[in-house]
């Protein structure tokens, strides 16, 4: 047992300290040789045998679709699942900005090493060097692959691919397709997947939600799913299971995630023994359209590029907050980012911009409904560049804004507020992307692997596709080479147990017949999480949150009202299952946030700040991955630490002043 210096008295009562763990799959040696070495050493599967090996892939986002297409192409028997009515609708579709790759097409000095360096630094030194280097290395092949599939990236007049710079790095390495990069990449992967479906190598199950993992003799061997149209509970068995089920930002209720995003697939695996790593690392995006009322179901992102020309301000005086912003004279405005961070101004990184907005609103100087908003003002830009030029650059974003708020941003400053956008935490995986359960692999946003405590813009798409097209297909064969494993009978006790637990849970939801709707619990959970485990976290707040979530969870199981039947399309029932899991996750997130008594990346602890109030990292005590083991319904989670070793990059404190 390692001694914990992190443990304040408050937090250790919520968890148990466990054995440290290590990533056994990563080769050592020079960083640029590690991936080639691993690819070479991973066992091969003869093409003729691949047909006999079956793979379940849950999720059809960038990670899942690219993995399913590639594995299908290679000749494995793949079964793919998603909860939407088509694989093309996975939430990867919503990504706007772009995807990074170290192509150095602009000749501005980019390289694998620079991308690696930027990503590790951007992640506030809480990610693994081996993984991130591999990501940078593979990034180039992603672009090649996507272009070959017909992904229409932006091009210059000469026919070459265009790049832009993104997220505060100094090179232009972001490939993009207008504001629809995620859509275009996903459609490319989706089409490759559909091609394999037609070829018969992939069996697609849409509107099927995974509700349980089936483990036999310590290995992941299948999943239990619900056909969301007929309500039938189905068992699917395979030699291995891959989860590509995306992020859990919906624990906050309001986020930029899709309505159906959930943690169920990974949470169910966690309950069966997979470690959940760094659950508290969430990314808050500074430029979202603020909440307009209680009815609101989700938040919409406004591209970060707006900060290039817009100026962010709030009134100096609280009393001015209700006024028409155009009537507030220059001297009465506080351009707080320009004031506090003169060097970077409005272009400080996401976490800093978000927190600064929160601070001014907490001071009571926020604008708009509920005082939760700051102005993003284009008046200067319009004067300098002309309205037409602003329109040609940002016209579509302005239109979205106008459609949602009913205000014309050419005349009145936009209002923006930070919102939950991405979750860096996820199931713990080794270098092979295998979780702590043998045979269970996790890819894309669902795993914790590559971003550390903060994710740089345009790097999630890169990671999802790297995992699906290039990493997983190469590492999973090492596991599959020992297969095919014994066929499991559907009446095997382990299978029956899993299926029955799902059936009982559903029956239970329908029987409670309480008084509160599922959504009302989800909203209540979201509020606790946002207030106490959001942009700024304190030991006190987190401790309270843990108690409140426990109470809410108990109330949920007593009082929730789910109407309808189990054997039909029943959206309340679907939501109930998701919210039940989010409640459990929320608690673990707070415990994780509480135990990590430092500020790093997206995780800001009010107790760990520099003299001038900036985030203060504690490398001495917290340079590790926190991997949590499930402790039972009434027990405590166990913390396993994986130490992070920096051999190639020196740890530094970030500063943007």
């Amino acid at each position, binding site marked *: 047992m390692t001694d914990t210096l992190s443990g304040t008295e408050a937090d250790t009562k919520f968890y148990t300290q466990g054995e440290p763990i290590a990533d056994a799959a990563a080769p050592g040696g020079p960083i640029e040789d590690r991936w080639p070495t691993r690819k070479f050493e991973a066992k091969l599967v003869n*093409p003729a045998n691949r047909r006999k090996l079956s793979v379940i892939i849950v999720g059809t986002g960038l990670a899942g679709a690219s993995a399913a297409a590639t594995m*299908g*192409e*290679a*000749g494995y028997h793949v079964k793919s699942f998603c909860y939407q009515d088509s694989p093309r609708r996975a939430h990867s579709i919503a990504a706007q900005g772009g995807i990074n790759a170290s192509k150095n097409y602009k000749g501005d000095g980019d390289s694998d090493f620079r991308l690696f360096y930027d990503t590790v630094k951007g992640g506030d030194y809480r990610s693994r060097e081996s993984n991130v280097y591999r990501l940078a290395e593979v990034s180039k092949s992603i672009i090649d692959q996507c272009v070959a599939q017909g992904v229409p990236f932006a091009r210059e007049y000469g026919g070459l691919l265009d790049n832009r710079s993104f997220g505060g790095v100094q090179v232009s390495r972001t490939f993009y397709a207008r504001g629809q990069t995620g859509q275009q990449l996903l459609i490319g992967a989706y089409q490759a997947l559909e091609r*394999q479906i037609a*070829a*018969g190598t992939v069996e697609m199950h849409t509107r099927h939600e995974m509700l349980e993992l089936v483990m036999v003799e310590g290995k992941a061997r299948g999943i239990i799913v619900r056909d969301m149209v007929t309500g039938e509970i189905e068992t699917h068995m395979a030699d291995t299971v891959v989860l590509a089920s995306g992020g859990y930002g919906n624990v906050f209720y309001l986020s930029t995630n899709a309505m159906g995003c959930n943690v169920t697939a990974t949470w169910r695996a966690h309950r069966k023994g997979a470690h959940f790593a760094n659950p508290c690392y969430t990314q808050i995006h500074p430029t979202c359209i603020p909440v307009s009322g209680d009815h609101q179901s989700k938040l919409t992102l406004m591209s970060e590029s707006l900060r290039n020309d817009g100026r962010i301000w709030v009134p100096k005086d609280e009393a001015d907050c209700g006024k028409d912003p155009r009537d507030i004279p220059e001297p009465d405005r506080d351009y707080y980012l320009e004031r506090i961070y003169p060097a970077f101004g409005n272009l400080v990184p996401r976490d800093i911009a978000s927190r600064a907005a929160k601070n001014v609103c907490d001071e009571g100087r926020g604008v708009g409904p509920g005082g939760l908003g700051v102005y993003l003002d284009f008046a200067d830009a319009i004067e300098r560049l002309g309205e037409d030029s602003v329109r040609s650059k940002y016209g579509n974003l302005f239109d979205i804004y106008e459609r949602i708020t009913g205000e014309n941003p050419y005349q009145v400053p936009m209002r923006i507020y930070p919102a939950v956008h991405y979750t860096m935490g996820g199931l713990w995986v080794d270098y092979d992307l295998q979780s702590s359960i043998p045979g269970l692999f996790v890819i894309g946003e669902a795993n914790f692997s590559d971003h550390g405590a903060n994710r740089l813009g345009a790097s999630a798409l890169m990671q999802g596709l790297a995992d699906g097209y290039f990493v997983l297909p190469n590492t999973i064969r090492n596991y599959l080479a020992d297969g095919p494993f014994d066929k499991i009978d559907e009446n095997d006790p382990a299978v029956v147990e899993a299926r029955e637990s799902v059936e009982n849970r559903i029956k239970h939801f329908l029987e409670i017949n309480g008084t509160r709707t599922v959504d009302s619990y989800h909203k209540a959970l979201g509020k606790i999480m946002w207030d106490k485990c959001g942009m700024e976290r304190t030991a006190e707040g987190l401790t309270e949150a843990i108690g409140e979530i426990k109470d809410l969870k108990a109330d949920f199981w007593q009082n929730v009202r789910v109407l309808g039947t189990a054997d039909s399309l029943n959206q309340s029932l679907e939501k109930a299952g998701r919210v039940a899991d989010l409640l459990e996750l929320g608690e673990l997130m707070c415990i994780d946030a509480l135990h990590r008594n430092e500020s790093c990346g997206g995780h800001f602890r009010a107790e760990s700040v520099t003299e001038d109030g900036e985030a203060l990292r504690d490398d001495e005590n917290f340079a590790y991955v926190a991997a949590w083991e499930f402790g039972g319904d009434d027990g405590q989670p166990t913390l396993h630490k994986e130490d992070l070793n920096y051999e190639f990059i020196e740890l530094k404190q970030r500063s943007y002043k």
Partner: protein
Amino acid sequence: MHADIVGRASDYLPNVTCNITFVATSTVSSTTRNGPSTIALKSLMAITGLIFIGFVLAHMYGNLKIFAGEAAFNEYAEHLRELGEPLLPHEGMLWILRIVLILALVGHAYSAFALWSRASNARKSRYAVTKAAKSMFVSKAMRWGGVALLLFIVFHILHFTTNTIQVNGDYDNPADRLVSSFELWWVVLIYLFAVAALGMHLLHGVWAAGMTLGLNTSAKAAERLRIAAILVAVVTVVGYILPPLAILFGIIP
């Protein structure tokens, strides 16, 4: 499954070597379907439609000969029947044209009705409220307008070609039949209706034929097509209504 071509990058980039051999998986597969595709049907409609346009314009030219005097008009009618002589028998060319037109009409009507029935099979339960007023009108106008044209043609042939329907006395030369008929206002009215139906049919039809034959692939091409449709429709309507109106108002005695 169809394991035919495995389209690789190297298929279109010969200088690239493919170092990956995968278990062959299919590329484009094909399904069996019943009967011609909907696009084949509408292509048939477009091609037969174009044949009609050709005929309609030529016929219009012939009709306008009435302004050159009865003799010229009769001579033209006679000339039609002598086309191709002596290679072809008397009226030979005319019959060839007639057969082409009849076949075109059969093809045109067949495709119109086949698409019509496929469309109603494609949506069996109707919307409670519909707002697609404009296109509903166009689609009805094309279908019922076409049927109206068909009925008119039957009447018209019985009237002028076979001389079966004699509206204002029995004349044995075409010019006299024409002039005597159009002295009656209600005959003129019937023709005006028919010409209006034709104009409407062409206004949408010419544009649609261009769409179907793949001529509208850019904004510029779309503009050209629209102008062509208006031009054909206007020329046709004006060209056809001049003779009857001129006769009715006594400009042609």
